[in-house]
Structures are given as C-alpha cells and as structure tokens.
C-alpha cells in the first residue's frame, strides 16, 4: 500500500484569517439590521398587538390565529395577484425593449455613434426618486391635468379621461413608471452580457451561413442566459416588494377598488394601527414566497454546473475504486 505523501507537515503561512476580518463588517451589519429584525418579525407574528388611538392592545400570545385570519379572511391572494400583474406588465416591455436596444447598440453593422449619450439618457430615469416620479405622474394624469387638457384640446377625446379611476389605466401607469425606471439598467446589463460573448462564435456562425435571427436564437440567447436569469430574479424580488410607486400614485389605497394594491401596501395598512401581529404575518408570508422563488431560480441557474459536478464526482469515485492514479 502506498503511503500517502504527507503534505501536512509542510509549514506554510496562512492568510486565511484575514479573509474573515474583511467579511466580518458585512456579517455584523447583516446580523444587527437584517437577521435580528427578521427573527423578531417571526416572533411578533404570533402575538396580537395593535394600537387604537393612544391605547395599546396586547401583545397577547395568540399562536397561529393571525395566520388563519390573514390566509382565510383577508384579501391577500388578491393583492398577490395584483402585485404579479403590475410586475409582469412592466417587466415584459422592459426586457423586450432592453434586449432590442442592447442588440442595436452592440451591433457592428449598425455602428451607432454617440453611444455614451444614449446610455446616459436611458439610464437617467433610474436616478429619479420613485416617489417624486409618482407625484409627477399623479399631477400629469389627474382629471384636469396636462395630459387630459392636451387630449381634449387636440380632439382625441371629448371629455377628460379619468385615468386614476380606471383599473387598467392605473395599472398601466404604474407599469409604465416601473418600465421607465428600469429599462436603462437592463439595457446596460444586457449590453455587457453581449459584449462578453466571444466574437469568434459570431464569425463561426456567419461562416456557417446563419441568418441574424438564427444567430440571435442559437448563439446570443443561450450565452446570455446567466445574465437574463440574473435580471429575472432581481426584477422578480423587486416586483414582489413593489411599494413606492403605487403607494404614492394612489395615495395608499390602490384605487380603484384596491385593484392596484400590492402586498407591501397591504402590510403598510396594518402598520397604520401599529398592528405588528397581522403585519408580521404578511411579512413572513412574503418572505416565504420570495424564498421559494429564489431557490427555484437559483437551482435552475446552477443546474448545468451542478450536473457537471455530479459527473466529475462520479468519475472520481470510479477512479478511486478502480486503482490508484496517483491522486
């Protein structure tokens, strides 16, 4: 039997502990400002605790009663549907337009001049505060606001169209705001992704006689997959937590008829009466939903690399059993 060469006795200087020092600040801050509030939210959701006027009711331990109340009596599923709708009708145009723009900007044939200016301009809406943006849209699209005045005076419509009393119009406005704020960011990301693809692949495809459409679907898209999935997951998490734009636009009510009320807006309603019990439940449920989605997307993202690891592990095991190859 071969004795294993002992590599352990070799003296070496380990700088490993410095790594821990450098990542420590993040973990300390995460622990204090994220983990402890997270755990205390879980804890609070089992209590009945709210304030009426200036008198505090609770905290009284009620176990899962709050969960039952939220899951059966409240309209949380409806608000979840609202959140999803608001997210998706903003996200689809966002990704399509961003993809189109990214392709146009990175195309050698088109060779657009002044790309720097374009990139700056499309990124700028991202810098506006969502609340200021919503106030602007609220003023623009109000019953006698500039947009209505314009539409009526040019004769497109006869009477002012009440945007904020119409479900689809309100949702459309919220989706447009989200789209405007984020499509610049997505374009830049996709551009970076496309520029990272090896130019040789494109040349090889052209040599093989692929049309532009084929090149796009067979070469660009599969290689952009990691970036696309990153965009999808971050946008989804942002979408689940959508709050500022609809809150300001509809003044906290998600009108009309709460059709634009998102889950976090609903949570905020409970906080108006300092109802930490019910608000805690909504938080926990959102956390679980986000967790499930993230795990799902993460697993599909790393599916190929996990499969590769499995294959390597199998090979390694076979080799170990079969004989020594000097590993």
């Amino acid at each position, binding site marked *: 039997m071969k004795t294993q060469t002992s590599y352990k006795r070799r003296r070496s200087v380990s700088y490993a502990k410095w790594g821990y020092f450098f990542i420590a600040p993040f973990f300390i801050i995460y622990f204090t400002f994220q983990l402890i509030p997270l755990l205390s939210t879980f804890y609070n959701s089992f209590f009945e605790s*709210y304030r*009426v*006027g*200036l*008198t505090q*009711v609770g905290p009284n331990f009620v176990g899962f009663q709050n969960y039952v109340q939220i899951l059966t009596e409240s*309209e949380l599923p409806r608000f979840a549907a609202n959140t999803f709708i608001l997210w998706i009708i903003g996200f689809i145009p966002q990704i399509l337009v961003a993809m189109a723009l990214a392709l146009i900007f990175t195309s050698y044939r088109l060779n657009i001049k002044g790309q720097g200016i374009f990139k700056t301009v499309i990124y700028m809406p991202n810098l506006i505060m969502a609340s200021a943006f919503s106030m602007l849209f609220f003023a623009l699209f*109000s*019953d*006698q606001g500039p947009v209505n005045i314009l539409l009526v005076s040019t004769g497109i419509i006869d009477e002012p169209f*009440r945007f904020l*009393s119409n*479900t689809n119009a309100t949702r459309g406005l919220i989706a447009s705001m989200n789209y405007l704020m984020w499509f610049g960011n997505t374009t830049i990301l996709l551009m970076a992704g496309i520029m990272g693809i090896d130019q040789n692949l494109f040349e090889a495809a052209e040599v093989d006689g692929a049309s532009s459409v084929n090149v796009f679907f067979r070469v660009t898209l599969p290689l952009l997959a990691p970036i696309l999935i990153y965009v999808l997951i971050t946008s989804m998490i942002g979408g689940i937590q959508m709050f500022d734009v609809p809150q300001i636009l509809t*003044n*906290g*009510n998600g*009108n*009309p*008829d*709460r059709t634009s009320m998102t889950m976090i807006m609903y949570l905020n*309603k*409970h906080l*108006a*009466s300092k*109802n930490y019990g*019910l608000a805690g439940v909504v938080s926990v449920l959102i956390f679980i939903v986000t967790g499930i989605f993230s795990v799902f997307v993460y697993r599909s993202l790393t599916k190929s690399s996990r499969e590769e690891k499995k294959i390597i592990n199998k090979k390694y095991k076979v080799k170990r059993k079969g004989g020594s190859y000097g590993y």
Partner: protein
Amino acid sequence: MKKLIVLLLALVMVFSMVACGEKPVETEEPTEASTETEEVTDAETEAPEVAEEGKVLNIYCWNEEFQTRFKTFYEDAGKVPEGVTINWVITPNENNAYQNKLDEALLAQADAADDDKIDLFLIEADYALKYVNTDYTLDVINEVGLTEEDVADMYQYTKDICTADGKLKGVSWQACPAGVIYRRSIAKEVIGSDDPADVQAALADWDKFDAVAADAKEKGYFMVSGYDDDYRVFSNNISEPWVTDDKITIDPSVKRWVEQTKLYTDNGYNNKASLWSAEQWAGAKDDGTVMTYFGPGWFFDFCLMPNCLADSEGEAEVGNGSYGDWGIVKGPQGFFWGGTWVCAAAGTDNVSLVKDIMYTLTCDVDTLTSITETYNDFTNNVPAMEAFAADENFGSDFLGGQNFVSVLLDSAQSISMENIGPYDQGMTEEFQKAFKDYFDGVVDEETAYENFYTAIMEKYPNLSK
C-alpha cells in the same frame, strides 16, 4: 487629477455625514426667569416638576391657520415673554402624518428633555375624543389655570366636545356652524335671484335642492363640485353614533348621502371632484361652473377664498377672480364642520404661558372680535357673535357684503355633539374612499360596503360589523 477628484468625493461624503448632526432650532440663552411671576402660584398647583417656566414652547399643528392668528394677536402684540422661543412643529394631515407625529411625541413625553416636551397641540373635531379621553391632555380649568368665568361665553357645544368626565380639556377660538356658499352670478341665472332669502327658499329642503340641481344642469352648471362636498351635512345629523360597544352602525342619514350622490353623479349634477383637489377649486374660479360649496367660516376664508382668486399674488378684493361673487345661506339642514381646539399636553413645562395663550386667543373677547373682522371666522363668543349679527354694517367683502354671522347664528346654537365618537375621523375617511369607487361605477353598492368594513377594521382592529 484623479487623486484630486477622489479626495473631493471623500470630503463631500464626510461632510454630508457630519452636517446632519446640526440642530436646526437653537434655544436662546436663558436670561431671567420669565416675567410671569404672578402666575407662578397658579402653576405650582399642577404637577411638581413645573417650578420654573421652560424656554422653548413646542406647538404641534397641521397648518398655518393658528400660526397666523397667533402671530397677529399674540406675538405682534408683544405678549411672548423674554427669552422664550416658540417652536412650531407643523406636520400636514396627509396619510395621518400629523397624528402619528403627535402620538409619538405624547407617548415620549415623560422621558423627553424639557425643551423637547410638547406644550401645546391642536386637534380637530373628528378625532378630538381620541385625545380628550386620555390623560395626555390637561384639564383646562383645574390644571392649566383658566377660570369658569373665562370660558363662560363660549358656545356650549365647543365645550361639550372636549369635556371628558366633567373636565374641560380643550378650548377653541372658533365655532364652526356651516352653510351653503353659493355663487351669486350662477344663482341669478338658475334660481332667478341672488338674494339670500330667495336662495334659502329655493334650497329649503333636500327635495327642493335636488330640483334646483336639475335646473342647474339644464343651464350648464354643476350643483356641487364633487362627491364629498355635502357629506358633512348628513354625517352631522346622524341619530346614533358610528360605533356602539365596538360595533359599527351606518346611519340612515349617511345612506341618504350615498343615494343623493349616486343620483347626482349619474345625472351629471356634480363635477366628480375629490375634496381638496385642484379640480374642486377649478369650479370656483372666474370661469368655474359650480354653484354651491358647503362649509363654515374657515372653509370660505382659508380654503375657498384663496382658490377663487384669478391672481393669487394680488390683493384679495372684488375684481380679482370670483371674489365678492359669493353668498351664504343656511341650506337644507344645519350642520357644523370641524373646528380646531387647543390642548395643553400633560407634562408641559410652560403651563402659565400656555394658559395665557389659551386665554388671549380663545377667551378674550377683543381678540375674538378682531379675528372675526380680519379672518371671517365665526368666533367662540356668544355675546360677540350676537352683536355682529345685529350689526348692519358688518359684512364680508368676499360674500358680497353679506353678514354671514346672522345667517349662521341659530345654527351655532343648535349644534349637538351627542353622537360623536373617537372613531369619527377614520369612519369619515374610509367611508368616502370606499364609496368613491361606487360613484365612479367601478363597484356596486354591496362591494362598497364590504370594502368600507374591511378598511375600517384594518384601521381599528377592535371593531366589528
């Protein structure tokens, strides 16, 4: 060059972190103890920590109405003692921000530093009971130092609303009887005359009011500007409180409002405006087509008048917009709307200053008379108001020279506070919000009621249907 930029950025970041540590209000150097030596004996009957008056008076309110009156009649009259700074903490009412801030301050009162303690705060009729029923407000007579005599001339209802367990907890400078404010030029066309007596006859009850609304529509005018304008008339005349034993009751009077507004909206008698929105005031301008607004003195002075001017920077006088083209009548039902009460916060360190402010601005008949003359408020002094009503020469330019006090006088005497409760504000807001969807045609009546109950139980989790 790069290093320079990096250095500048670092400095900017450091300075921005340091800058937010500055205190915006600096308290002045304490000079002598304040000049109110003779009132210290009064103060000493109160809580033991008030031995010496504080140097900062913290006043919490939501707009500048009280501030303007305070400045004119207290500060400019030189009554603020030496060395005392008045600190105005004004938080608008939007999304309940004012009450949230007030609640946090009151709950932290015991541990706050003397200069940070809240001393005086203002409350509205809608949520008065929320504060009056607690120990956070001081008894105006026994603890702050006003006398029964001082408040004797006030309208009884303004005292009733702020009385809990027999203790008076807040005082007001205004009584708020309200009426129908009509546009004279439009009334001439629709009713045939703009004389208050004729207009009152034409609007004497709700059926007549509806009939005039139909006429107005034919002639191209809106009767009211939106859904919530006359809500208060109905909600004031309810026969039982909104909440009894934590159970919600919706009064028939309020249901009448729902019916009327739905009818008006479907027939186009209103302009679908929301309360306090730009659209509401657009109907009051020179070319506006709204015939009536509902409200008391503060409504037509503080809200309607500035918004009816064509030139907002110019003088408020006849010729500027629709100024002067308005009149007021009692309307189909008497009602009141709001009102602001001044309360002393428990634990205040400026008790005698608070007492003096309360006396000057709410009890002193000279101040109240001036307030009526300058601001068209219906002030809280029965003899003074009766004198104004009888005075033939008193009139408001905004109302075309009309003496509004005589119109509102008997409404003021008949206002009843029997059915108010601590949940009124939430009820009013959520009811109006829920039914806006019904009037817009987005939901049906059943759903609107359901939505109302859902929203109100989120706001007040202890209530049930």
